[in-house]
């Protein structure tokens, strides 16, 4: 805890923003990374991953609100999101 703690109101706002936008980032990254891994045509796989992405978002929101430490929560959402997004971009076919 090197940084000074934020005021409760700001901490709450940050948490809500993290849940909404961090969760959306995680869901987006999920929809990017998972299609190449599924044993289906690309179109079907993209649709499947997108449909599941909304579940990821809901779970991410709930998880964010169970975490005590905001920085840990941010890392828990954003690092996997970055990794998955990078993987999805690498696995992109020649058509896109």
């Amino acid at each position, binding site marked *: 805890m090197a940084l000074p703690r934020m005021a409760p109101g700001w901490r709450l706002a940050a948490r809500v923003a993290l849940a909404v936008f961090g969760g959306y980032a995680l869901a987006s990254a999920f929809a990017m990374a998972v299609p190449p891994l599924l044993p289906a045509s690309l179109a079907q796989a993209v649709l*499947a991953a997108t449909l599941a992405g909304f*579940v990821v978002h809901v779970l991410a929101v709930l998880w964010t609100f169970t975490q005590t430490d905001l920085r840990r929560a941010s890392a828990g959402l954003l690092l996997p999101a970055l990794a998955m997004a990078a993987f999805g971009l690498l696995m992109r076919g020649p058509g896109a």
Partner: protein
Amino acid sequence: MNDALSAANAPKQASGAGLRQSMAWLHTWCGLWFSWLLYAVFLTGTLAVFEDPISHWMTPEHHAEEAALEAASAAAVTGTAGADRGQRLARAVAYMAQHHATQDMWEIWPADANGGGELRAYWFDAERRYVMARLDPATGAPLPDAAPAGPVRGTHGGHHFVDFHYTLHAGTAGLWIVAIAAMAALVALVSGVISHRRIFRDFFTFRPHRGARSWLDAHNAVAVLSLPFQLMIAYTGIVFTATLFLPAGVMTHYGTDAGARVRHAAALSSPVPHARTGRAMAVPDLEPFAARAGQLMGQPVRAVVIDHPGDAGMRIGVYGWNDAPGLERRMSATSGMVAFSPEGEVLHVRQPGGAGDGAASFTSQVMGNLHMAGFGGVSMKWLYFLCGLAGTAMMGTGAVLFMVKRRAARTDGFGAWTPRMHRVIEALNVAAIAGLPIACVAYLWANRLLPLSIGQRADWEQGMFFAGWALALLHAFVRPPSRAWRDQLATLAALCLLLPLANALTTGDHLLAELARGDLESVGVEATCMVLGLLAGIAALRVRPRAAVPARAASGRRAAATLDSPGGAS
């Protein structure tokens, strides 16, 4: 808000109580801020289940016409299908080749499911609009649009409720707002279940006349008992336009340009890619394709779609007509489809309601159908209507419960702003919970009272819906809360109960006449309206007048005290 803040900010780690506390916080606030919007979405969605009967009731001038159409289709001889389908297809192809040869997609609807009816051709015009020409089945010459006969009651009918339900009449912006609200509903549902201490012990529990405890019981009962429906309806509502709300997957794998979603959608239903080859090739005789497709999918032919007509890379897709008994027992409402190469090779077959397009497409089609109650027939619509009302009640009781608990516990959740915020929440509760139904019935009243001759009549009706709602909102802020509740519930009851009278006075139609001629759709609309009016009337009588409010608050305080203790009241 300090107690609330601490619950949200510092949940005790890895402890059940801490988890429950943070989920309860999330449920309360996420629920509160979205409850009014979700109430409106749920109520109009519940009415949208009966879009067709409402439209039917709102267009009394068309009743004779509808009955004649129904009789005609019932009287049509089956078994003539295919007799002149080949000629109809050929005439439509000739028309398209002569007038719209350069269009990249020709869609021909040769006949109705019995082989008769209209011959129609569709294509996208220069502005990418989907347009249609009606052709004479005997000659292939385009038919002029039939002039509407008699005075027409301009109305959006039941579609007003559908449109409000998913776009709030605000186009794409509304679509997004409703989708965000649906996500909030999912979060509130799951966090509500996690924070609920005794789901199974309280499963059937409703204790009336006990203030906040009764509201909590009611909220829990309608939510828990209809939970599968609520989770399903919120999730399937979002995934309708999944790739619009969550485009990252499509953008990564299909590109970021405007056409990416269209390419993805096309690839979903046709695994075999088909592009123009540049070699010219005449559109073949379509009847053999239609006949073969009819055999393969076991449905009469509804439409023949030709992509890239006149090119050797063209593809011919044949779609089937769904029949009502089949739709009732199928999870997916997609019809059969067979895709051919121009040489007649079968490229792709999808059985009616089948998973031939792929598991994800099938799942998405099933979810769309689940959301819209496209299966199961009339009894399923009633189940959806009842479960939808339960969802509406869940939002309403939740919003009321918030205020009842705060009033009872005299918490200052908003600091210095507490009295003002409570006044605003209370007024919004009245305007949303009692005001929106008033607006919905006002829409039906406007349908009967507005003169038939005014211009933009349909929009006027819709205007009356919003005017009714605005008046309710104003009234809720002007009158003290308990008065506002009583006034608006009484107004709602009167409007609902008197609707059949308004109908009788303006069109001369009434429940007995409707029953006598077997017009169950009209009977259903008016009878349901009267039942809801009766319930509103009972509710109006049970709102205690102003003098009794402290008593209610006191009993509520007792209930709230037990409510917040760890073990609950029991």
